[in-house]
Protein backbone atom coordinates (compact mmCIF):
# COMPACT_ATOMS: atom_id res chain seq x y z
CA UNK A 1 0.00 0.00 0.00
CA UNK A 2 2.80 2.42 0.90
CA UNK A 3 4.51 1.52 -2.38
CA UNK A 4 1.35 2.46 -4.27
CA UNK A 5 1.21 5.81 -2.49
CA UNK A 6 4.85 6.49 -3.36
CA UNK A 7 3.99 5.64 -6.96
CA UNK A 8 1.14 8.13 -7.00
CA UNK A 9 3.29 10.90 -5.49
CA UNK A 10 6.14 10.16 -7.91
CA UNK A 11 3.70 10.28 -10.83
CA UNK A 12 2.11 13.54 -9.71
CA UNK A 13 5.51 15.24 -9.40
CA UNK A 14 6.70 13.82 -12.69
CA UNK A 15 3.49 14.85 -14.48
CA UNK A 16 3.75 18.33 -12.96
CA UNK A 17 7.27 18.83 -14.35
CA UNK A 18 6.39 17.29 -17.71
CA UNK A 19 3.58 19.82 -18.07
CA UNK A 20 5.80 22.71 -16.98
CA UNK A 21 8.48 21.65 -19.44
CA UNK A 22 5.93 21.74 -22.32
CA UNK A 23 6.78 18.16 -23.13
CA UNK A 24 3.21 16.88 -23.23
CA UNK A 25 2.43 18.45 -26.58
CA UNK A 26 2.02 16.63 -29.86
CA UNK A 27 3.58 19.66 -31.59
CA UNK A 28 6.74 19.42 -29.46
CA UNK A 29 7.15 15.67 -29.89
CA UNK A 30 6.66 15.81 -33.66
CA UNK A 31 8.88 18.91 -33.96
CA UNK A 32 11.68 16.95 -32.28
CA UNK A 33 11.23 14.11 -34.76
CA UNK A 34 11.35 16.65 -37.61
CA UNK A 35 14.48 18.13 -35.96
CA UNK A 36 12.85 21.54 -35.64
CA UNK A 37 12.46 21.99 -31.87
CA UNK A 38 14.46 20.02 -29.30
CA UNK A 39 12.31 20.75 -26.20
CA UNK A 40 11.71 17.08 -25.43
CA UNK A 41 15.36 16.16 -25.98
CA UNK A 42 16.41 18.99 -23.63
CA UNK A 43 13.97 17.70 -21.01
CA UNK A 44 15.05 14.08 -21.38
CA UNK A 45 18.79 14.74 -21.31
CA UNK A 46 18.48 17.13 -18.34
CA UNK A 47 16.58 14.42 -16.48
CA UNK A 48 19.14 11.79 -17.45
CA UNK A 49 22.18 13.86 -16.43
CA UNK A 50 20.81 14.89 -13.03
CA UNK A 51 19.46 11.44 -12.18
CA UNK A 52 22.64 9.74 -13.46
CA UNK A 53 24.86 11.77 -11.12
CA UNK A 54 22.52 11.21 -8.18
CA UNK A 55 21.91 7.51 -8.70
CA UNK A 56 25.56 6.61 -9.34
CA UNK A 57 26.61 8.66 -6.31
CA UNK A 58 24.10 6.74 -4.17
CA UNK A 59 25.28 3.51 -5.79
CA UNK A 60 28.86 4.25 -4.73
CA UNK A 61 27.57 4.72 -1.18
CA UNK A 62 25.78 1.37 -1.42
CA UNK A 63 22.36 2.97 -0.91
CA UNK A 64 20.69 1.96 -4.17
CA UNK A 65 20.83 -0.77 -6.80
CA UNK A 66 20.67 -0.59 -10.56
CA UNK A 67 17.75 -2.22 -12.36
CA UNK A 68 18.86 -2.90 -15.92
CA UNK A 69 16.92 -4.17 -18.89
CA UNK A 70 18.80 -6.83 -20.85
CA UNK A 71 20.44 -5.83 -24.10
CA UNK A 72 18.77 -8.15 -26.60
CA UNK A 73 19.78 -6.68 -29.93
CA UNK A 74 16.97 -8.30 -31.97
CA UNK A 75 14.08 -7.18 -29.81
CA UNK A 76 15.48 -3.83 -28.69
CA UNK A 77 16.36 -2.72 -32.23
CA UNK A 78 13.26 -4.09 -33.99
CA UNK A 79 10.94 -3.13 -31.13
CA UNK A 80 12.57 0.29 -30.87
CA UNK A 81 12.08 1.01 -34.55
CA UNK A 82 8.46 -0.19 -34.44
CA UNK A 83 7.79 1.90 -31.33
CA UNK A 84 9.35 4.94 -33.00
CA UNK A 85 7.24 4.57 -36.10
CA UNK A 86 4.05 4.44 -34.04
CA UNK A 87 5.24 7.31 -31.84
CA UNK A 88 5.65 9.53 -34.93
CA UNK A 89 2.03 8.81 -35.88
CA UNK A 90 0.59 9.22 -32.39
CA UNK A 91 2.74 12.15 -31.28
CA UNK A 92 2.70 11.00 -27.64
CA UNK A 93 4.64 8.26 -25.88
CA UNK A 94 3.01 5.99 -23.25
CA UNK A 95 3.87 8.24 -20.29
CA UNK A 96 3.16 11.55 -21.98
CA UNK A 97 -0.20 10.38 -23.38
CA UNK A 98 -1.69 10.38 -19.89
CA UNK A 99 -0.05 13.71 -19.12
CA UNK A 100 -1.38 15.20 -22.35
CA UNK A 101 -4.86 14.11 -21.37
CA UNK A 102 -4.32 15.77 -17.98
CA UNK A 103 -3.78 19.16 -19.61
CA UNK A 104 -6.85 18.75 -21.82
CA UNK A 105 -5.45 17.20 -25.00
CA UNK A 106 -8.32 14.86 -25.69
CA UNK A 107 -6.76 13.39 -28.84
CA UNK A 108 -4.50 11.41 -26.48
CA UNK A 109 -7.53 9.23 -25.66
CA UNK A 110 -7.37 7.59 -29.11
CA UNK A 111 -3.72 6.88 -28.60
CA UNK A 112 -4.29 5.42 -25.12
CA UNK A 113 -7.02 3.15 -26.53
CA UNK A 114 -4.68 2.10 -29.35
CA UNK A 115 -1.88 1.39 -26.89
CA UNK A 116 -4.15 -0.86 -24.80
CA UNK A 117 -5.02 -2.79 -27.97
CA UNK A 118 -1.33 -2.91 -28.91
CA UNK A 119 -0.48 -4.36 -25.50
CA UNK A 120 -3.19 -7.01 -25.88
CA UNK A 121 -1.90 -7.96 -29.34
CA UNK A 122 1.63 -8.22 -27.97
CA UNK A 123 0.43 -10.53 -25.19
CA UNK A 124 -1.02 -12.82 -27.88
CA UNK A 125 2.19 -12.78 -29.92
CA UNK A 126 4.50 -13.18 -26.91
CA UNK A 127 4.87 -17.00 -26.89
CA UNK A 128 6.00 -16.89 -30.53
CA UNK A 129 8.30 -13.86 -30.04
CA UNK A 130 9.84 -15.50 -26.98
CA UNK A 131 11.20 -18.27 -29.22
CA UNK A 132 12.42 -15.92 -31.96
CA UNK A 133 13.13 -12.17 -31.79
CA UNK A 134 13.58 -12.22 -28.01
CA UNK A 135 16.51 -14.63 -28.35
CA UNK A 136 18.41 -12.79 -31.08
CA UNK A 137 21.67 -11.33 -29.78
CA UNK A 138 21.16 -11.42 -26.02
CA UNK A 139 24.09 -9.74 -24.27
CA UNK A 140 22.44 -9.64 -20.86
CA UNK A 141 22.18 -6.73 -18.45
CA UNK A 142 25.14 -4.56 -19.37
CA UNK A 143 26.07 -0.92 -18.92
CA UNK A 144 28.35 1.26 -21.02
CA UNK A 145 31.04 1.43 -18.27
CA UNK A 146 31.00 -2.39 -18.04
CA UNK A 147 31.31 -2.64 -21.82
CA UNK A 148 34.30 -0.30 -21.79
CA UNK A 149 35.75 -1.87 -18.65
CA UNK A 150 36.10 1.46 -16.82
CA UNK A 151 34.79 3.04 -13.63
CA UNK A 152 31.39 4.69 -14.26
CA UNK A 153 32.64 8.20 -13.51
CA UNK A 154 34.96 7.96 -16.53
CA UNK A 155 31.79 7.71 -18.61
CA UNK A 156 29.56 10.06 -16.60
CA UNK A 157 31.89 13.06 -16.68
CA UNK A 158 32.52 13.00 -20.47
CA UNK A 159 28.77 12.38 -20.90
CA UNK A 160 27.99 15.59 -18.98
CA UNK A 161 30.37 17.59 -21.19
CA UNK A 162 28.90 16.03 -24.32
CA UNK A 163 25.35 16.91 -23.25
CA UNK A 164 26.51 20.43 -22.35
CA UNK A 165 28.02 20.86 -25.81
CA UNK A 166 24.84 19.54 -27.41
CA UNK A 167 22.68 21.97 -25.39
CA UNK A 168 24.97 24.81 -26.41
CA UNK A 169 24.60 23.79 -30.04
CA UNK A 170 20.79 23.62 -29.71
CA UNK A 171 20.67 27.14 -28.29
CA UNK A 172 23.02 28.55 -30.94
CA UNK A 173 20.86 27.11 -33.68
CA UNK A 174 17.54 28.10 -32.15
CA UNK A 175 16.42 24.51 -31.67
Amino acid sequence: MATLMYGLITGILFGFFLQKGRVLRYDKQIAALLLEDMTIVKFMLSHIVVAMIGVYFLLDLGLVQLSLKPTILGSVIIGGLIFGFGWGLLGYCPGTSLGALGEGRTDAIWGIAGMLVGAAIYAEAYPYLLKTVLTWGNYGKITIPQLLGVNHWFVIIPFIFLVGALFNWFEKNGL
Partner: protein
Amino acid sequence: MKVNDGWSPYLAGALSGLVSIGSVWFVGKYLGASTTFVRSAGMMEKIFTPERVAKMPYFIKEAPIIDWQWMVVIGIAIGSFIAAVTSGTFQIKPLPDMWEAKFGPSIKKRAVIAFIGGIIAMFGARLADGCPSGHGLSGGLQLAVSGYIALVCFFIGGMLSANIIYKGCDE
Protein backbone atom coordinates in the same frame (compact mmCIF):
# COMPACT_ATOMS: atom_id res chain seq x y z
CA MET B 1 -1.40 32.33 -26.27
CA LYS B 2 -1.54 32.36 -22.49
CA VAL B 3 0.88 34.37 -20.37
CA ASN B 4 2.50 31.75 -18.14
CA ASP B 5 3.29 29.18 -20.78
CA GLY B 6 5.81 27.07 -18.90
CA TRP B 7 9.33 26.65 -17.61
CA SER B 8 12.59 26.03 -19.36
CA PRO B 9 12.71 22.36 -20.39
CA TYR B 10 16.21 22.21 -18.86
CA LEU B 11 14.87 23.23 -15.45
CA ALA B 12 11.75 21.04 -15.63
CA GLY B 13 13.82 18.09 -16.85
CA ALA B 14 16.43 18.54 -14.12
CA LEU B 15 13.73 18.73 -11.41
CA SER B 16 12.09 15.60 -12.80
CA GLY B 17 15.53 14.00 -12.55
CA LEU B 18 15.48 14.72 -8.82
CA VAL B 19 12.13 12.91 -8.65
CA SER B 20 13.81 9.90 -10.25
CA ILE B 21 16.63 9.98 -7.69
CA GLY B 22 14.12 10.14 -4.84
CA SER B 23 12.13 7.28 -6.27
CA VAL B 24 15.21 5.06 -6.69
CA TRP B 25 16.48 5.99 -3.24
CA PHE B 26 13.29 5.64 -1.20
CA VAL B 27 11.39 2.95 -3.07
CA GLY B 28 14.04 1.34 -5.27
CA LYS B 29 11.92 1.96 -8.37
CA TYR B 30 12.89 3.34 -11.75
CA LEU B 31 10.37 5.24 -13.87
CA GLY B 32 8.56 3.49 -16.66
CA ALA B 33 5.13 3.57 -18.27
CA SER B 34 4.48 0.95 -20.91
CA THR B 35 4.13 -2.12 -18.64
CA THR B 36 1.10 -0.36 -17.17
CA PHE B 37 -0.67 -0.67 -20.50
CA VAL B 38 -0.07 -4.44 -20.45
CA ARG B 39 -1.45 -4.76 -16.92
CA SER B 40 -4.46 -2.59 -17.83
CA ALA B 41 -5.17 -4.59 -21.00
CA GLY B 42 -4.95 -7.76 -18.90
CA MET B 43 -7.37 -6.34 -16.31
CA MET B 44 -9.91 -5.57 -19.03
CA GLU B 45 -9.54 -8.97 -20.70
CA LYS B 46 -9.87 -10.64 -17.31
CA ILE B 47 -13.42 -9.32 -17.02
CA PHE B 48 -14.46 -11.35 -20.07
CA THR B 49 -12.10 -14.33 -20.17
CA PRO B 50 -10.50 -14.79 -16.74
CA GLU B 51 -9.38 -18.42 -17.33
CA ARG B 52 -7.69 -17.56 -20.59
CA VAL B 53 -5.82 -14.54 -19.13
CA ALA B 54 -4.64 -16.66 -16.21
CA LYS B 55 -2.92 -19.02 -18.66
CA MET B 56 -1.32 -16.45 -20.97
CA PRO B 57 2.47 -16.34 -20.46
CA TYR B 58 2.72 -12.57 -20.90
CA PHE B 59 0.04 -11.91 -18.30
CA ILE B 60 1.79 -14.35 -15.98
CA LYS B 61 5.01 -12.35 -16.48
CA GLU B 62 3.27 -8.96 -16.15
CA ALA B 63 0.32 -9.76 -13.88
CA PRO B 64 -2.85 -7.73 -14.47
CA ILE B 65 -2.76 -5.90 -11.16
CA ILE B 66 -2.36 -2.33 -9.94
CA ASP B 67 1.28 -1.82 -8.96
CA TRP B 68 3.69 1.04 -8.28
CA GLN B 69 4.16 1.96 -11.94
CA TRP B 70 0.41 1.85 -12.59
CA MET B 71 -0.02 4.50 -9.89
CA VAL B 72 2.82 6.56 -11.40
CA VAL B 73 1.06 6.65 -14.77
CA ILE B 74 -2.23 7.76 -13.18
CA GLY B 75 -0.23 10.28 -11.14
CA ILE B 76 1.26 11.76 -14.32
CA ALA B 77 -2.25 12.67 -15.52
CA ILE B 78 -3.10 14.20 -12.12
CA GLY B 79 0.19 16.11 -11.86
CA SER B 80 -0.19 17.47 -15.35
CA PHE B 81 -3.77 18.51 -14.59
CA ILE B 82 -2.64 20.33 -11.43
CA ALA B 83 0.19 22.12 -13.27
CA ALA B 84 -2.11 23.09 -16.14
CA VAL B 85 -4.97 24.37 -13.98
CA THR B 86 -2.78 26.33 -11.57
CA SER B 87 -0.98 28.07 -14.45
CA GLY B 88 -4.12 28.71 -16.48
CA THR B 89 -2.88 26.59 -19.39
CA PHE B 90 -5.55 23.89 -19.09
CA GLN B 91 -7.52 23.79 -22.29
CA ILE B 92 -9.71 21.10 -23.85
CA LYS B 93 -8.05 20.61 -27.21
CA PRO B 94 -9.30 17.85 -29.50
CA LEU B 95 -6.68 18.51 -32.20
CA PRO B 96 -3.01 19.54 -32.01
CA ASP B 97 -2.23 22.83 -33.84
CA MET B 98 0.32 21.26 -36.15
CA TRP B 99 -2.03 18.47 -37.09
CA GLU B 100 -4.94 20.82 -37.81
CA ALA B 101 -2.77 23.09 -39.96
CA LYS B 102 -1.75 20.13 -42.10
CA PHE B 103 -4.74 17.79 -42.08
CA GLY B 104 -7.71 20.04 -41.36
CA PRO B 105 -10.40 20.02 -38.64
CA SER B 106 -11.54 16.37 -38.94
CA ILE B 107 -11.39 14.75 -35.50
CA LYS B 108 -12.08 11.36 -37.05
CA LYS B 109 -8.96 11.48 -39.19
CA ARG B 110 -6.79 12.30 -36.15
CA ALA B 111 -8.51 9.61 -34.08
CA VAL B 112 -7.78 6.91 -36.68
CA ILE B 113 -4.09 7.82 -37.05
CA ALA B 114 -3.60 8.23 -33.29
CA PHE B 115 -5.30 4.88 -32.63
CA ILE B 116 -3.20 3.05 -35.23
CA GLY B 117 -0.07 4.86 -34.02
CA GLY B 118 -0.89 3.76 -30.47
CA ILE B 119 -1.22 0.09 -31.47
CA ILE B 120 2.09 0.13 -33.35
CA ALA B 121 3.89 2.11 -30.64
CA MET B 122 2.82 -0.17 -27.79
CA PHE B 123 3.58 -3.37 -29.69
CA GLY B 124 7.06 -2.01 -30.36
CA ALA B 125 7.55 -0.77 -26.81
CA ARG B 126 6.70 -4.18 -25.37
CA LEU B 127 8.98 -5.94 -27.83
CA ALA B 128 11.79 -3.52 -26.97
CA ASP B 129 10.86 -3.99 -23.26
CA GLY B 130 10.43 -0.27 -22.65
CA CYS B 131 9.37 3.15 -23.85
CA PRO B 132 11.04 6.60 -23.68
CA SER B 133 10.56 6.50 -19.89
CA GLY B 134 11.77 2.98 -19.10
CA HIS B 135 14.49 2.73 -21.72
CA GLY B 136 15.15 6.40 -22.42
CA LEU B 137 15.13 7.99 -18.97
CA SER B 138 15.71 5.05 -16.63
CA GLY B 139 17.97 3.12 -18.99
CA GLY B 140 19.77 6.29 -19.97
CA LEU B 141 20.48 7.44 -16.43
CA GLN B 142 21.86 3.99 -15.54
CA LEU B 143 24.07 4.06 -18.65
CA ALA B 144 22.39 0.84 -19.80
CA VAL B 145 23.50 -0.28 -23.25
CA SER B 146 19.90 -1.33 -24.00
CA GLY B 147 18.64 2.16 -23.12
CA TYR B 148 20.82 3.97 -25.63
CA ILE B 149 20.22 1.47 -28.44
CA ALA B 150 16.47 1.77 -27.82
CA LEU B 151 16.59 5.56 -27.66
CA VAL B 152 18.39 5.80 -31.02
CA CYS B 153 15.91 3.35 -32.60
CA PHE B 154 12.94 5.26 -31.14
CA PHE B 155 14.14 8.44 -32.84
CA ILE B 156 15.00 6.75 -36.15
CA GLY B 157 11.53 5.15 -36.34
CA GLY B 158 9.84 8.37 -35.26
CA MET B 159 11.77 10.54 -37.69
CA LEU B 160 10.73 8.18 -40.45
CA SER B 161 6.98 8.29 -39.79
CA ALA B 162 6.87 11.99 -38.82
CA ASN B 163 8.72 12.90 -42.02
CA ILE B 164 6.45 10.68 -44.11
CA ILE B 165 3.27 12.29 -42.83
CA TYR B 166 4.53 15.89 -42.70
CA LYS B 167 6.99 16.08 -45.55
CA GLY B 168 6.26 13.03 -47.69
CA CYS B 169 2.87 14.04 -49.03
CA ASP B 170 2.43 16.93 -51.52
CA GLU B 171 4.01 20.35 -50.77
